[in-house]
Each structure stands twice: as C-alpha cells, then as structure tokens.
C-alpha cells in the first residue's frame, strides 16, 4: 500500500515559539489517520503545513507523492480541506456555494447535476435555496464538507470536524467520513476527542506541545492508558483510612478524601465493590464511574494534563 502522506522531522515556529518540534508520520492511502491533542498542541498548524497554507521551517512533507513546498500546486490539486471554522459563503445559498466550487474547478456541463447529488447526499436539498447564514452549525459543517468534495479529492483533511456539534450531527459526520474512506479516499482528521479518534481512525497519533508522544492503532493506545475506574468520596479521613485498608490496591487522595478503584464499571464489579464496603459498614458519600478520556491519555503519556496555555 502506498503512502498518501509522509512527514519527517517537520518543524515550525512562530517567532520564538516552537509549535511543531520534529514530527514524523505516515498515512497509508485509503485509511483514516487521526491526530489527537488538546487545544494549542499544534494540530491546526500541522494541517496548515500539510495543506500548503503555510510552509514548514524544516523537515520534509510529501502529500499525494508531491512535496508540499516545491510542488504546492500538485498537492492542492489532490487534496480537499475542511477547516475548523466552516468556510462557507454566508451571503450565498447552499446551492450557490457548491456551484461556486464547481465553477472554480471548471467542472462545466455536469456541474448542476453534481451539485444536486451533493445536496441530496448531505441532506441539504431542502435548504439549498436559503442563504447559509440561516443554517445551523451542523448544516454548515455538512455544506463545508460537501464543498470540499466537489473537486473529488483523493486526500481529505478534516480539522476538528465535530467540535461544537450536537451528538446527532456528530454521528452523521462520522457516517459521512466512513463512507468517504469506503470510496477509497484517505482521511487526515484532527480531534480533541478520544472517542472520535477511537471510532473512526485506523491509526492515531497523540500530539502534545508540538511533539508526537504516541502513535498506534486505537487498541494499542488504549493499552497504554489507565482503564476505567470507580471514584469513592468519603466523609472524613477516618473512614478513608478504613476503606483504604479494605480496598487494597486503590489509589488514595487525602486532600479530596477519595479512593480510586480500578474497575470496568460494569454492574457486577460495582455490586462486589459495594458489598465489600457494606461488609465493613463503610459508607461513601459519593460514587462515580470514570471511563478514560483524553485527559487520562495525556496524563498517562505525558505526565501532565491537557491544560495548555491558550494561543
């Protein structure tokens, strides 16, 4: 299988602030690659370099077999980009936006038919004649993606395609991404959500402060992070002490008066945990079940949480 995207030792700094500090990655054609990281990690900068919007300070970037700096035109002909903020023309209607793309791609005769098909496919036919300023966030994202598809790109970059979308629109977007890949397209996706990367990606790379701290399949990554756990909060230090003796292997936090117990969060495991507390007449003030999220991945991989000074 050939590589759609090859990046080695990519560096980029804005002034004296290093944003990307030597990134290596490879995306095989026809797969979904997800770049996972918190705000300010350098995800958008990576996408901007890969899509020829900005040039790298160092390293090599090849997209669709072409160098992103010296053969930018050839790269642009092969890619489609849907940025973080819906790049639609608000004064034009949905149909006019798509027609504008078709005109710029010089599609000519078949463009009306193509535009109609895209409107149908993205469930936008009903609002096709309305200005996009009246569209909901989800509809704009869909239109944005439809506009990206007009030139039939072989590699599609999606920069946080579901940030700010409601759960239903997110699911729709995921469905569309899966369809694209089924059609042989390569997708490079950035996200702040572990579950999104988990759902969609063949490979995930975790970006932190301009460096890749981990790379692998979703299963490989999840093996590196702590599993689900139950958090118990107690009323006073004495109860916490007593509970800590009963529940060996739990992690205690004296300040918060909590214990963290490894657990899959299922009812059977919970029942046995509660039975054990009951056996020793211990009462917890509060019980909560935690499944791993991006914060856990970060804590596990980098030793610090996802709080990064905002740009």
């Amino acid at each position, binding site marked *: 299988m050939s590589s759609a995207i090859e990046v080695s030792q990519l560096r980029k700094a804005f002034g004296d602030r290093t944003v990307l500090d030597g990134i290596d990655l490879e995306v095989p054609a026809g797969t979904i690659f997800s770049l996972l990281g918190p705000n300010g990690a350098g995800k958008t900068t990576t996408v901007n370099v890969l899509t*020829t919007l*900005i040039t790298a300070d160092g390293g090599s970037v090849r997209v669709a077999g072409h160098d992103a700096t010296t053969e930018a035109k050839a790269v642009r002909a092969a890619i489609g980009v849907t940025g973080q903020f819906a790049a639609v*023309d608000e004064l034009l209607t949905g149909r006019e936006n798509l027609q504008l793309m078709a005109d*710029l791609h010089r599609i000519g005769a078949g463009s009306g038919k193509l535009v109609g098909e895209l409107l149908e496919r993205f469930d936008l036919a009903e609002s096709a004649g309305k200005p996009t300023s009246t569209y909901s966030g989800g509809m704009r994202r869909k239109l944005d993606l439809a506009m990206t598809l007009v030139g039939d790109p072989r590699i599609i970059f999606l920069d946080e395609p579901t940030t700010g979308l409601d759960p239903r629109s997110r699911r729709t977007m995921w469905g569309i991404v899966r369809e694209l890949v089924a059609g042989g397209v390569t997708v490079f996706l950035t996200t702040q959500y572990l579950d999104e990367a988990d759902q969609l990606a063949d490979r995930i790379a975790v970006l932190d402060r301009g460096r890749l701290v981990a790379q692998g399949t979703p299963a490989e990554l999840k093996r590196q992070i702590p599993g689900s756990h139950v958090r118990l909060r107690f009323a006073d230090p004495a109860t916490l002490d007593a509970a800590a003796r009963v529940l060996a292997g739990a992690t205690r936090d004296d300040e918060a008066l909590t214990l963290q117990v490894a657990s899959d969060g299922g009812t059977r495991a919970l029942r046995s945990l509660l039975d054990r507390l009951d056996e020793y007449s211990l009462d917890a003030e509060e019980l909560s079940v935690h499944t791993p999220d991006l914060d856990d991945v970060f804590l596990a991989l980098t030793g610090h949480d996802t709080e990064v000074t905002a740009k």
Partner: protein
Amino acid sequence: MSTVASPLGDSAIMLRRNFKHTLRNPTAVFNAVLFPVVIMLMFVYLLGDAFSVGVKYVDYATPGMLVLAICYGLGSTATAVNSDMTKGIINRFKVMDVSRGAVLTGQVVASLLNNVIAVAAIVGTAFALGFRPSASFADWLGVAGMVVLVGFSIGWFTVALGLSAKSVETAGLATVPLIMLPFLSTAIVPAGKMGPGAKQFAEYQPFTPIIETFRGLLLGNLHAGDAIAAIAWCAGIGVVGYLWAVATFKKRA
C-alpha cells in the same frame, strides 16, 4: 471535464460572487447611496445659500460630492474584504489554488460597480437641485474615466486597509479618514476660505486636485496641472494599495 484554470476566469467567478453579495445585501448599497445624497442635500439645499464661492453653490459642490460618494462606498468594501479574510473562506480558496489576485480583483471591481451606482445617484440629485454643468460629451467621458480611476486606485488602497485590519469593526474604522479627507479638501469651500493649517492641508492633499479635475471637467475650466496631479496621485495610491494588498494577502494564512 475540467479545463485549465486561469487567473482571468477565476476573477470573473469571484466577481460574480461579489456581485451576488451586493444583490443579496441591498441595504449596504442603499446606505452607500443614501448617505452621500443626504450630505449633498444638507450642504446644497439647507446651507448652500450661506456659502459664497463665486458660482452657484450646487455647481461648486457637485464635484466634491462625487468624490465623497466614492469614498463613502469604500467603507463597505473594507469590511467585505476583512470578513472574507477572517471567516475562513479565504483559506478554502487558497487551498484550491484559486489565483491569488482573483479574490481581490473581484472585490475591487464589485466596489467599483457600487461607486458607479452612488455617483449616478449624486449626479441625479445634483440635476434635481439645479446643477447646470457646461461639460461637453468629451468632458463627461473624462468624468466617467476619473470616476473609474479614482474608484479603482482608492479601491485597491481600501482592499489593503481591509486586509490589514484585525477585525471587521477596525476595517470599517480604518476607512473613516478616507471619508473625512474630502471634507478637508476643496469639496465644500475653496481652500482660500479655510483657516491657517487647514488651508495648507487642503491645498496639498490628494483629494483637492482630484476634485478640482472633476470641477474643471464639469464647469469647463480644467487646468492641466490639476489633472496631472490627480492622475499622479491616483496612480501612486493605486500602486501602493495594490502592492500592500497583495503582500498582506500572502502573509495572512
């Protein structure tokens, strides 16, 4: 299938887009026409008798009002350019390898069309107020040419202002001096009637020769010196505006 993209074709597509924007947003056009007309009514109809400028005041004021109408209309050009830059659509065009100049050319030409509409409204109002120019057909062609030259050159400068502004609001604010400058020229009264400081400023700022050229063409007493200065100013402003606009456009991702 697709044919080779050309900068000219891209510009035409972009102009169509900007033209649709204008049609979609009639209040902006209305505003660009209304304000200069109101100013003209105020100065000529309400205050006109109070000025003694040697000729009928409407004949004196109309050339300045033409320039004011052009300048006022440019405010919306700056905000339109800025909102294109800040709303992300520009990145889509860049990634699609649309000719870099096409986006800007579309804006400048659309802005020029707005200018022509506003100028036509001013000329109409002037005639209603008793404007009786002595211009020949050739003079009118000269006026039309100057409108295009001024609109085009200051249009490029405005595009640069719009591109450089951080937000849509500051882009609008950046064009305020352009709207104020005609007032500090010979548009309303001759420089000789102004106080010290203002007089010298009015004599040497670019809008004075531009307005004097319009005045000369319309009233049939054109001085070559004014025309040369006006064309030189326009060429200078246009070239600086164009280079500044293109450089800023490349810099902003």
